[in-house]
């Protein structure tokens, strides 16, 4: 028996390529959902707006969109760094700062939805 070993590449390319497209579709769907919900709400005031976000389905949909957004933003921003930021140290610092910011945004989103 021989083991096929692949000795080149980091092997996150296809996964990230697919993640970028799946998350894009989730974000497009959420955009249409939110747009539809707003358009079909008469008298959009605090009560109807907060009421919409107090439902379980809207919280689930919003959190799914936030997760898709975080992942999508990570892949996209990392690609920009890989193209333009050559010094490894600088790139690492930017990547870590980006990951920290994105996870922070996700936590913030949970807190916002938690309170509604």
């Amino acid at each position, binding site marked *: 028996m021989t083991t096929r070993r692949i000795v080149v590449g980091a092997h996150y390319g296809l996964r990230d390529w697919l993640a970028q497209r799946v998350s894009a579709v989730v974000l497009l769907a959420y955009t249409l959902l939110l747009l539809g919900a707003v358009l079909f709400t008469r008298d959009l005031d605090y009560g109807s707006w*907060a009421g919409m976000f107090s439902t379980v389905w809207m919280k689930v949909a919003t959190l799914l969109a936030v997760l898709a957004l975080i992942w999508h*933003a990570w892949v996209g921003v990392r690609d920009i760094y890989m193209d333009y930021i050559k010094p490894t140290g600088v790139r690492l610092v930017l990547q870590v700062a980006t990951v920290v910011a994105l996870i922070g*945004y996700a936590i913030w989103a949970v807190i916002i*939805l938690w309170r509604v």
Partner: protein
Amino acid sequence: MADIAAQKARPQYRNIGVNQIVSYRLPPAGIVSILHRISGAVLFLLGIPFALYLLQESLTSELSFQSYRAIVGSIPGKLVLLVLIWAFVHHAVAGIRYLLLDRHVGIQKDASRSSALAVLGITVALTAVLALKLFGAF
């Protein structure tokens, strides 16, 4: 071998320099591509924090809802929103084109050129309509 050396040097285009960016004429698909990247960066740097802040103000309480109203009602707030609206619309419309290209829809040269021009046209039109709505034209 002497023939090759005698050949007229052909122009070479390697990585273009920063000072050449303005004079470098991109095809429509190239314009869509670089704007997709720029709009993505804008959405990350400005869009996510601003959208979350607005979501927080609009949802937390009646009182914070008033502050949300004040922010989106102010001229600076509207200008930031306008930039973000353009970035989001361009990123989404160009993104749909990329998803179609991935499905091998419109990958021929002519079709891809037309779809790139369509992306630019649809983005300008949608952004203009939303800008009119934002600034209270209707």
